[in-house]
């Protein structure tokens, strides 16, 4: 009986230690699509976030405590991200939430974080409504519209192409890119010959390609992700369309080059990761990510990495886990990260340079940089 009592006392002591240890870490919530159609982006963003956590913890953590990433799979669905957000806030008691996911789930989760007054950072979801959820929501990447405007400048001014066909992906991502592109097209003397839309499930573009060919454009502005853009670009080239194809950060993966093969050569995209960057933050990220993941870095990984670094610096500067203090620190942050310098405006949007990357000899390389604060200015409200 006495022995049993000792065992109970020991168990109790250890269980106290257990909870003691748990509260010794600072929890950051992270939702990403680990299963379903967007699982590849979910994997990259999660690894990017984990790399940032690892780097911070190895450097001694934040104010003596280690960071802990609480990862949930939202399947890129709004219906999944809502219960996940509630769980992160209510059960896990995260001090900051980060979305490594697409626009639809991020929009839904943003409202819940705002209501609970816990800061929430969208790493690469681009829908304008996300930051409109309130003052606790931030975004470390470009808005779709902003990137669309950059695309117009790239085609009309930098490349000097005027007859453009648009091939638009029919979702939040593609639609907001198209809106930004059309808004500025005239300013750069671009004539939009035609616009075609496709669904995210399409991989065979025979009909669109045939029509584009008969339109004889100087350039094609095609929105999409690497898994739609890879087949699209190779089908365009196979049918004899030789004009320049301009994409965006959705293409930004080595998988795009693997799918399109030789057809990928010469494709230019607007993105936020510069492969040829000499900036130590970017070069170090590209090297370390490949070491951790076993495949080359991409935009979503860099964006998630950046978002975690922003959260970590804010917690450090706040010297507290009080969400309100952390929010204030995020709002006033200035951080050089793998995707550029992060500083937020009053709406929680960043303004940074757009990196144009081109495929050369089967690799992404720098083509040009757009640093036009007026063109790239995100909305203030």
């Amino acid at each position, binding site marked *: 009986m006495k022995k049993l009592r000792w065992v109970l006392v020991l168990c109790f002591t250890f269980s106290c230690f257990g909870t003691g240890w748990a509260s010794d870490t600072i929890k950051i919530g992270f939702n990403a699509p680990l*299963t379903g159609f967007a699982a590849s982006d979910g994997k990259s963003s999660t690894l990017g976030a984990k790399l940032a956590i690892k780097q911070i913890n190895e450097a001694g953590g934040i104010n003596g405590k280690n960071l802990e990433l609480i990862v949930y799979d939202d399947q890129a669905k709004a219906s999944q991200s809502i219960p996940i957000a509630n769980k992160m806030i209510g059960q896990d008691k995260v001090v900051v939430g980060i979305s490594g996911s697409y626009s639809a789930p991020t929009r839904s989760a943003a409202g819940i974080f705002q209501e609970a007054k816990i800061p929430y950072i969208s790493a690469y979801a681009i829908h304008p409504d996300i930051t409109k959820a309130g003052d606790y929501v931030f975004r470390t990447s470009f808005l779709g519209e902003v990137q669309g405007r950059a695309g117009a400048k790239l085609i009309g001014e930098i490349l000097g192409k005027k007859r453009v066909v648009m091939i638009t992906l029919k979702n939040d991502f593609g639609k907001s890119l198209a809106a930004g592109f059309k808004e500025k097209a005239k300013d750069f003397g671009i004539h939009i010959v035609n616009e075609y839309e*496709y669904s995210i*499930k399409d*991989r*065979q573009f*025979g*009909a669109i390609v045939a*029509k584009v*060919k008969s339109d004889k454009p100087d350039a094609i502005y095609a929105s999409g992700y690497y898994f739609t853009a890879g087949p699209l670009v190779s089908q365009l080239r196979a049918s004899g369309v030789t004009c320049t194809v301009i994409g965006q950060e959705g293409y930004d993966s080595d998988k795009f080059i693997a799918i399109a*093969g030789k057809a990928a050569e010469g494709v230019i995209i607007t993105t936020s990761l510069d492969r040829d960057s000499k900036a130590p933050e970017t070069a170090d990220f590209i090297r370390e990510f490949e070491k951790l993941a076993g495949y080359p870095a991409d935009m979503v990984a860099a964006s998630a990495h950046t978002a975690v670094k922003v959260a970590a610096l804010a917690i450090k500067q706040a010297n507290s886990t009080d969400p309100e203090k952390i929010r204030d620190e995020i709002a006033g942050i200035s951080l050089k990260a793998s995707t550029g310098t992060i500083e937020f405006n009053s709406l929680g949007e960043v303004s940074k340079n757009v990196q144009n990357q081109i495929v050369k000899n089967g690799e992404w390389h720098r083509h040009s940089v757009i640093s036009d604060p007026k063109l790239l200015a995100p909305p203030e409200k």
Partner: protein
Amino acid sequence: MLFIELFIQGLIQGSTYAIIAVGLTLVYGLLRVLHVAHAGLFTLGAYLGVAVTNQTGSLSLGILVAALAAGIVGMGIYRLVYEPMLNKPPYVALIASIGLYIGMEELFRLVFGPFGLSFSSAPLQTVVVVFGIHLRACQIIAVVTNVVLLGGLAWVAQKTRIGTGWRATVDDPQMSACFGIDPIKVRYRVFFAGSALAAVAGVLVALLTNLVEPTMGAVPSYKSLAIIVLGGLGNVMGTLIASLILGIIEAFGTIYIGDFLDRDAIAFAFLIIVLMIKPTGLFTSR
């Protein structure tokens, strides 16, 4: 010119639909089961085809392995999933089939990773220019394969003993059993042939897009259901014609009505219109 090009693109698209849907209609004709997991075998075939081709450098070996493996897995699905449920109402097997398909999707993701798989050097991409129309070798082969495989299937069904046995079992399983036809054997053969065809379609689609993903079966899984209803359930020739018509309608629809109607919605809009006019489908089923 554009008209002809769109027509040809429609035929190519329709050909891949036909090869997938025919297996589904065969299974439905025999068991009255809507075999949604058929699209999982299509994905399995695509993965195996690309993986084996990348390893060995031989596309023919890739297609052979894909067809054999998918055929065997198809027979396994019949034995382990559908056979125990044949006495239950048809929706039981349908629910099992949907569950099986979702499980297969996630299994592919676990085994092959979420990034999808591409040919390390995609075969049959040589471009042939006919009257100004650029066609890749794999596009021509998709149409030819469709004609050969479905023609072969029709020949087997009409002219051989195996085909006669199959048709007899579809018409009246008990009576054909009395004449010495083993209905179980017929079922295994149908599952093997249908699944092997789905695998071939998978490899063809992989050649056309150079991308195999865990979720690539999602669209074919429901679109081929629309096709077999259009073609008259259980009707092979009807399925072929419905597939080609749908492919062509989609090709023109994408360009001319794509602004307000999604390409995948066109199939179902077409289905609704046909069923309103002719509730038995375009072609009466047996």
